[in-house]
């Protein structure tokens, strides 16, 4: 069971998101009505980037100690990005590490950061070596077309 302070905080986030949604997201909320510690989100691709038009589902596990400790977030839709594992969906983002996490981040702002990561790849700390190597070798065109392909190919849809 989540602690009262964690529950309160998550309910506030939920209400705030409902009243004031995030442009980066198509959806954010608990997966079921019964578990407030298990959320899902659908992220939108950034306009004017190779990810434009993409939709990816993410799964968010929230620890009992949230917001003192970071949520664990991974893509469940496959995405082609040097810092995101193609198969497991694991994301390499500093603010998701306990060292750099801050309790002032919300799930919504954190997902905004994930969206920003899409347009700001760091091939030097790769989780997807193949994609990272394209970038490291300066093959931006090759990278972009690969990204575009998978963005459309894997695009999340409701069913």
């Amino acid at each position: 069971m989540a602690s009262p302070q964690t529950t309160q905080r998550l309910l506030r986030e939920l209400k705030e998101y409902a009243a004031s949604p995030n442009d980066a997201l198509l959806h954010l909320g608990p997966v079921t009505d019964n578990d407030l510690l298990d959320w899902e989100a659908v992220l939108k691709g950034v306009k004017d980037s190779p990810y434009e038009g993409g939709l990816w589902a993410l799964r968010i596990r929230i620890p009992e100690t949230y917001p003192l400790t970071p949520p664990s977030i991974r893509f469940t839709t496959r995405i082609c990005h040097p810092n995101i594992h193609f198969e497991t969906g694991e994301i390499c983002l500093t603010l998701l590490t306990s060292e750099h996490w801050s309790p002032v981040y919300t799930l919504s702002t954190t997902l905004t950061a994930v969206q920003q990561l899409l347009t700001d790849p760091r091939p030097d700390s790769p989780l997807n070596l193949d994609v990272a190597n394209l970038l490291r070798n300066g093959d931006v065109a090759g990278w972009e077309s690969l990204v575009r392909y998978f963005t459309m190919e894997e695009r999340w849809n409701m069913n």
Partner: protein
Amino acid sequence: MDPSFDLPDSTDWLNTPLSLLAPLESSLRCQVCKDFFNNPVITSCSHTFCSLCIRRCLSKEGKCPACRTSDQELKLRRNWAVQEFVEAFTNARPGVLDLAKKAARGDVGLEQPASKKRKVEHGEDRESDSVGADGVRTRSRSRRLDPQPETGIVEAVEDSQDEDFIPEDGLVACPICNKRMKNEAVFRHLDACTGSASPNKSRNLGPLQVSQTSRSPGNNTTEKPPGRLPTLNYSILKEGVLRRKLRDLGIPDWGAKQLLQKRHTEWMNLWNANCDSKTPKSMKDLLRELDIWERTQGGHAAAASAFAPPSVMRKEFDKEAWSATHDDDFKRLIAKARKKSEEQVRTTIPKMEELPSESSKAAADGPVTNGDKPESPRLPSAFLGPAEVASNSAPSLGPSPNPEM
């Protein structure tokens, strides 16, 4: 939102003529718990949080959650102005919100915040009419007229200055019955204290109030409740010593050393935050809060069920009652949020299908309310980068064993 679900927050002002109050209310809420500041304290980097929230953060990471300045456990100070502001605002809130909602429905005339002149008139009306606001003003005024005029020194709450608070007789008073005793004895006494005297609640005899009184000359004999708990260097404490320490504090002493540490830290935070309160809670209430912690994050939490707890400790916190009162509320809220989100998805998806040429339009779709967005802490760009630690170590960062994912 569903009016039957009452979780007041700053978004309540959106879509009313008083939408500009949303950011105002946001600024009166703690960024950690999102609730109104409760016993607000200010850090050395000048950020304000609830006393308990920032204490928990600092024991976890040692850094300010807002700006990541480190090294400040001992420098928290009460923020009286913010506390009064929160009290005044929350007193006025229901009435003003009610008015704003009526106005939004067209029941009452309340101009959109276009005309400044009009707004000023409203402000004046409220001041003279509002009983609530007057009550608050009176109260805060009388507090300022209390024994001590502003001296600007002793609002200070420094854990490092605990020694300064110890009165000359070396004794302290039980915050419940006021009986004087040795500092070490208070914790045990509190456990058994019947609290019959239930004193001075009206006089706000919290530790801080006491420290203020001590400013007045000749008042040195005023009772003082036990001081703040110092941090312990757990690494140099043997398990047995730590266990005895917990027993002396009057809190459960079972479990392995790591759990003892966690429990001591939580207790210290609860205790010290209570010292920042104008109306401190009783030892009993604090123990109840510790028990809630025990159930949700401590030795009784699901993950830690290996620790065998004495069953006597179970009865204090009524978990079922707590979930029963909250479950319905949050299920309703969750259901509503999901429904709304689904609608959003449905309306967005068709447009997205005209991809890729039309995609840019769709991405910008949806209710864009950034202008009114109440809480959107800027993410420091330095933290947006991928984790450096992960470099070349992808295998070790494998997926966490979570079956649902």
